[in-house]
């Protein structure tokens, strides 16, 4: 459904007294991956790795510096042919509006992502209006049905509330309803539960999983939380400083991580079992942004296995090491 090819996004940093951009942050650097229909993908990594940027690129909230994002709309009915592949980075005008029916986003902050002056009905109905779907009364029915489905029930109690009259969990349910109301093919969810209370998160995650089934939606889940990615996604891609270093089926990647960064990340996650002895986290130094990085492996400075080959070779490309399991490392 989605194929990202050599996706790159560079941000200039102003340096010098005349504010001329002399340095570039390689937020996303030559990233390629697939998002097949029905296989939710978790994009995980620490802050600054580029996962949020990729999320925004996939819904055209940002434009790539280079690379392609090929999107083939899934068939409306099984047995039909799907749409042709289109590079969404190149589309303009009316095509963009058509595209937005297919790709929606859920944001992290349930307090910032909604217009405080709009009631729930208007917030959720807006995408329908923009897309010209249905007449007014039809939209009311659609929205009510969706509110019930996301657990804001009876819908009539919620239609005319303002955001400040809703709790964090309720607002996030509204955000989910808004994202799904046009029947998108995929939804980018950027840390959808991290600002919610723990006992509320489970409900939201279960709701998203259920809707993935019933609405046929595929998620690109951007998160720093590996446990959430495990719960929600069939596949996980691990990012480090603008690059994907490993990608594979969730359980396999967690059981048999191949890249030294993935191993360090996994060993650092605290385990809710008192007395559990985690392995030593094998990584050197501190993280930093990828500003004007040299051409070698981005992980070289921190890698416990770093060798001469790594110093003298360009950044390794993703190579298949097992069925569906790819790793970018010279030494694996």
């Amino acid at each position, binding site marked *: 459904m989605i194929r990202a090819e050599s996706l790159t996004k560079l941000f200039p940093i102003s340096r010098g007294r005349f504010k001329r951009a002399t340095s570039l942050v390689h937020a996303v650097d030559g990233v390629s991956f697939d998002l097949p229909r029905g296989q939710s993908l978790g994009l995980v990594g620490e802050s600054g790795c580029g996962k949020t940027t990729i999320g925004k690129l996939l819904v055209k909230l940002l434009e790539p510096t280079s690379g392609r994002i090929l999107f083939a709309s899934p068939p409306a009915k099984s047995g039909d042919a799907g749409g042709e592949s289109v590079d969404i980075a190149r589309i303009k005008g009316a095509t963009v509006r058509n595209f937005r029916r297919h790709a929606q986003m859920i944001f992290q902050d349930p307090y910032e992502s909604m217009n405080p002056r709009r009631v729930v009905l208007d917030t959720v109905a807006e995408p329908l209006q923009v897309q010209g779907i249905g007449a007014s009364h039809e939209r009311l029915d659609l929205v009510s049905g969706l509110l019930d489905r996301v657990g804001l029930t009876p819908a009539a109690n919620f239609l005319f509330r303002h955001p400040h009259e809703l709790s964090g969990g309720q607002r996030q349910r509204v955000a989910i309803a808004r994202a799904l109301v046009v029947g998108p093919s995929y939804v980018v969810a950027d840390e959808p539960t991290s600002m919610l209370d723990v006992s509320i998160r489970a409900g939201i995650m279960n709701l998203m999983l259920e809707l993935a089934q019933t609405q046929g939606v595929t998620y690109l889940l951007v998160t720093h939380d590996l446990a959430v990615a495990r719960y929600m996604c069939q596949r996980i891609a691990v990012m480090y400083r603008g690059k994907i270093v490993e990608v594979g089926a969730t*359980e396999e990647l967690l059981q048999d991580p191949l890249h030294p960064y993935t191993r360090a990340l996994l060993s650092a996650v605290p385990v809710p079992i008192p007395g559990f002895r985690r392995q030593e986290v094998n990584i050197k130094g501190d993280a930093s942004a990828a500003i004007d990085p040299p051409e070698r492996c981005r992980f070289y400075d921190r890698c416990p296995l770093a060798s001469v080959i790594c110093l003298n070779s360009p950044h390794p490309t993703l190579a298949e090491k097992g069925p569906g399991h790819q790793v970018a490392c010279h030494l694996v």
Partner: protein
Amino acid sequence: MDASVDLAPCRLLRPALVVEDLTLRYLTRRGEVKAVDGVSFTLAPGQALGLVGESGCGKTSVAMSLMKLLPDNARLIRGRVLLGEHDLLTMTEGELRRFRWRRISMVFQAAMNSLDPVYRVGEQIVEAIENHNCEDSRQQARSRVSRLFGLVGLEPQMVDRYPHELSGGMRQRVAIAMALACEPDVIIADEITTALDVIVQDRILRELRLIQNDLQMSMVYITHDMAVVAEVTDRLGVMYAGKLVEMGDTSEVFGQPLHPYTEALLRSFPSIRGEKLPLIGLPGEPPDLIQTPPGCRFHPRCPSATEICRQKVPPKVQIGTHWADCWHPLAVTATGGRVPGDQIHGAN
């Protein structure tokens, strides 16, 4: 009695901190917020006690009370916070100055953002040491800062950096070093790694554990993260809506939770290890602390709630050092089965 007898063993038996019936309200326009209600616990020397709960449970208010750092609209209704024989809550600001930082200190989530941007970080700690008379000379203060930096895993040259030159994780470590500067008996850590990446968090937690052992320091660790608390704490208290609803050894609270809220919390956490189990959260929202529900504050969301829960404040059910306030605690019988707590009331 021989005057030279070493009294150290007796000192070790005395708790580092005793909190008794701490009750706090905030006065707001909408009414009185019953933020903390009858919280009591004991902290032994060298022990790490965790306080977990979700937003509005009162854990941060408890933390602030322990340092008596409360906003103007806070009203201490009753309670004692005992460091040795001294009740911090009855002290004046002048008296408290001798205790804060020297006997008890605090690191909070935003500490890394509250360093003074205009001074080098080492200098800020030197100043704190001097203000609290923890060293005799500036020279000694400086060498103490060097040792502290080593303790928290910061390179010696970081002493001369400004806050903006350091990453979030490093700044948080500076804040920890500052809290340790006068070698307090008790340190309160409020969500200190929540805003940090997991690899940085791991490093800080390990260092903190080493420091705690080296200095035989007690710690109150406040967080919403059950995984961190499992790793870091010896004793665990669970808070809900201003009340401490369960308390026990961490392994016991995790292994055999008594309170339905504790169990719900444990089953809300996804994990990267073990079997992938379906997560079960809780319906509804945390209660309004102005109009608190009658009876048990948890009853509107509790799967085990009955009529008595809606009407009467629940009793304390105790098994050894593990207790919970509940009409229907989950409990394990001698044969390993689970029974509702009504049947164990008689046994205790």
